[in-house]
Each structure stands twice: as structure tokens, then as C-alpha cells.
């Protein structure tokens, strides 16, 4: 198994093509898959996603990927959530009533609207916004080398509130709200924005991920 093999989970929604391409550009070997064997043996697993929380969780259950993902999280393999993927990692979401997530990162998912006090801030947030350091340096994180206040591309109506403030890697302001735009919790990394759609700065994140992967001690052999 190549040390750079990345499994990108296919739960039917989202621009997997661009995630795959971004991985390739970073020198990784991505494979789009919904087979749990691929997921359990990859050097890193990416959980992207677009759309409704409930539907995505149902799909993960149907594909029998819930436990495998928890296993990956418990191991030292890199698990990367993007956009909805980040939200799925949390304990629960308030989209359409209370729904259970993967509970890999403790915290909840809340709708943007509750904090949409400024007239001009619409929901979903669609567009570029700035990420700021939350807990000290970004050194040795996937955000290594990026400038403070770098612009990334967001498309979302919900955001995550991790229970552990130390997990917050970057914050972003939308209207009066300051929310967690990316998190880092041991081997679990997650981005509310889309690095593969954020131009060269976003691609830099993928290169950083590749770097982190190659520096990790041997995982599943």
C-alpha cells in the first residue's frame, strides 16, 4: 500500500473530482471509493460532502462506513473532513431537529441563521472569507505557511461548535458571528471551507497534508 494513498469517500454528493485533482496536484494517490476496505487501509481518508446532514449520515450507514470511520479516527491515520464532512464528524446537528453525527469530535452543528444579525449576511454563506489563527501557531498544521487572514472559499448554512476550544484551528467572521472554520483534533483535521476550491492557497493546504502524511510514522503497513 502506497504511503500516499488517500481514500476519498464517495457518498454521492459533492465535487469529488476537484478533491481528487487537488490531491493529485499535491503528489498524493487519491482513489474515490465507498468500499470500507479501501478506507481502512488508506494512508489518509477524506470525507468531503455537500448537502443535507441527515441524508449523508443515512448514506454512510447504508454503506456501512460509520464504524470504519470511527476506527480510522481512533488510529493514527489522517482523517480529513471537508465542509459537510466536517459537520458529520461532530456529535450532533440541529438541521431538521436533532440528528446524530459520527461523534468523532465532540460538539454540535448549528445553523448560521441564528447569528445572522447583519442585514447583508445571507444564508448560506457563499464566497470567500478570511481565516484567522485560533490557538497559536499554524506551524506543523495543514495551514502551515498561510498568511493570517488568508481567504478561503465557503459554501455552508451550518457551522461546527467543537466542545474543546483547543481543537479550533482557525476562526472566521460572518456578520456578528465568529465561528470555527477549521479544526484539529489529534489525527482528525477538518475544514468548513473548500481548500480545493480556494485557488493556490487552498492547494497549499493539500500539499501540507501530503507533507504531514509523509512525516507520520508508518500506519497500517
Amino acid at each position, binding site marked *: 500500500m502506497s504511503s500516499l494513498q488517500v481514500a476519498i469517500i464517495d457518498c454521492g*454528493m*459533492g*465535487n469529488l*473530482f*476537484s478533491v481528487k*485533482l*487537488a490531491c493529485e*496536484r499535491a503528489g498524493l494517490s487519491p482513489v474515490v471509493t465507498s468500499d470500507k476496505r479501501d478506507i481502512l487501509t488508506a494512508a489518509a481518508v477524506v470525507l468531503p460532502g*455537500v*448537502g*443535507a446532514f441527515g441524508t449523508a449520515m443515512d448514506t454512510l450507514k447504508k454503506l456501512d462506513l460509520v464504524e470504519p470511520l470511527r476506527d480510522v479516527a481512533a488510529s493514527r491515520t489522517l482523517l480529513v473532513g471537508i465542509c459537510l464532512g466536517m459537520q458529520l464528524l461532530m456529535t450532533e446537528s440541529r438541521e431538521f431537529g436533532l440528528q446524530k453525527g459520527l461523534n468523532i469530535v465532540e460538539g454540535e452543528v448549528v445553523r448560521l441563521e441564528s447569528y445572522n444579525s*447583519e442585514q*447583508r*449576511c*445571507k*444564508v*448560506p454563506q*457563499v*464566497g*470567500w*472569507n*478570511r481565516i484567522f489563527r485560533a490557538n497559536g501557531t499554524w506551524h506543523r498544521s495543514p495551514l502551515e505557511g498561510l498568511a493570517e487572514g488568508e*481567504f478561503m*472559499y465557503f*459554501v*455552508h*448554512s451550518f457551522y461546527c461548535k467543537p466542545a474543546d476550544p483547543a481543537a479550533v484551528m482557525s476562526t472566521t467572521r*460572518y*456578520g456578528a458571528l465568529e465561528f470555527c472554520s477549521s479544526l484539529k483534533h489529534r489525527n482528525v483535521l477538518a475544514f468548513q471551507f*473548500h481548500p*480545493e*476550491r*480556494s*485557488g*493556490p492557497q*487552498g*492547494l497549499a493546504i493539500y500539499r501540507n497534508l501530503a507533507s504531514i502524511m509523509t512525516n507520520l510514522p508508518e500506519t497500517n503497513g
Partner: protein
Amino acid sequence: MTIRLIPRLDIKGPNLVKGIHLEGLRVLGRPERFARLYYEQGADELLYMDVVASLYQRNSLLDIVKKTSQEIFIPLTVGGGLRTLDDIREVLRAGADKVSLNTAAVKNPEFVRDAARRFGSSTIVVSIEAIRKPDGSYEAYTDNGREKTGVDAFEWAVRAAELGAGEIMVTSIDHEGTGKGFDLELTFRIAQTVPIPVIACGGAGAVDHVGEVLSHGHVDAVCLASILHYNIVRRHEGMDEVTGEGNMEYLKQPRSFSKIQDASLQEIKAHLLRQGMACRPVRSTEVHV
């Protein structure tokens, strides 16, 4: 809130074209070349519209979508003649992030709901192309500005949002291609009425127009076509082989189109920043993929 500037590329076959009032197929060059330049010049997103798809009942953008998404890492929206969920799926598979729906959505509004359910609201942009009527109302048109629908543009915008559209793109057919500025009334009313982001399109002929539609139109993003394309043509950056299909007469003797004070993305963004409007600044470093 950071606003977005989105170059709009109208495409017919292999060519980038630009009309006036959604009429006329003057070729300005190759879309891939323009797309690349816009990416390098700081575009926030890109929009590809197949302007003849509904009219000719065909879809032909897949190749250029594939090519573009290999090289350009910002969101790409594709529209023109998307009639079924399969059409949408194919375009997304080819690398698009969002799709724009007009003709098919007006004919069958439930299509918007189905598409939003299947692909996620944020993937679905409903495009409304409207003409101002003598009584001050605005009517939506389909088939690249050719067929009347009897549908009121504002009512349709509200409905589209209810059906699950992620964004509304509103184009003034009266203004587009003329360089006389955006239809502020149209854009303002839609932006104030729908809870989802609104993209203004049609009419930018000077840098000031962009600032105007953002501050008076209250929109979240602006689509630009003539003002950017003619800028590239004038600076000869987009010069390509002038053979093959299409109305190449203008390219053979390029002269400026006097209704448009063309400008580059950098110039427009610099202007907006000076006016205190938040937008993603253009990087001066070489784009490096």
C-alpha cells in the same frame, strides 16, 4: 461580507462569444484562454453559459468544463440547456461545482426542488433573465432571451428560493452587453426579497457600475462579461487563431467597442477596495498550481 466578482463566459461551440441583449454571436476568442487569464487575474469564481443549448436543443460544454477544472481551482458554475437531472450530473462529474438553471426551471419549477434535493441546494443556481415592461414590471424570459413566459421575475425569484435554490443570478436583458450599467431596480428588489445570495448580471460598462450595483443593488456577487472580455481583446492577450466557425469579423479588425470602458479584474478590485468594499485582493505573485 466579502463580495465576489465572477467573469461570465458565453460559449458557443468552441468559441467565447459576446452579444448585446442576448443577441449576436460575435466571437472574441477561445474560452479556455480567457478563463485562465481570469483565474490569474483574481476571479473569485467562473461562470460558463452555453448560450445556444436551449435554442439548438443540445449540450456541448463538457469538454471545456473538464479542461478548465484540471487547471483552475476556483468554483465553476455551468449553465445553458440543462434539462434533466442526468444533464446536471454529467456536468458536475465533468468538474463543475454549481449549475445554473433557467429555461427548464421556468417550464417545470419542481425541477428546481428535485435538483436541490438530489445535488444539494448550494449546487443549484437559478438564473433569471428579465426584461422590463412598459408598466414597470419585469418579465422572465427563457431560451437565451427569446421566449416570453408571462412569469413575473420577482415572484419567480421568491418561488425559486422556496424550492431550494442556493443562489439567484439575475440578468437584465435590456442592459446586458450595452455597457450602460446594471438595472439597479431589478437587482435591488430581488436582493431584498430573497433570503439567499443574489448575483447581479448584465450591463457593466465602467468600473463605477460595479461599485454602484454592490452598494445600491445590495447584491452579494457580480457577473462581468463585456467589460472584462473587451479588455483582454484590446490588450491582445486573448488573441487566438481566427479561423473556424463563428463570426470572427470583429477579431479580424479589433477596435474598441465604444460603449464599454473596459477594465481588468485587478483594476475593478482595486477600485472596490478604495471604496471600502470587501473583496478578495488580487495576489501579485505568480499563480502556481
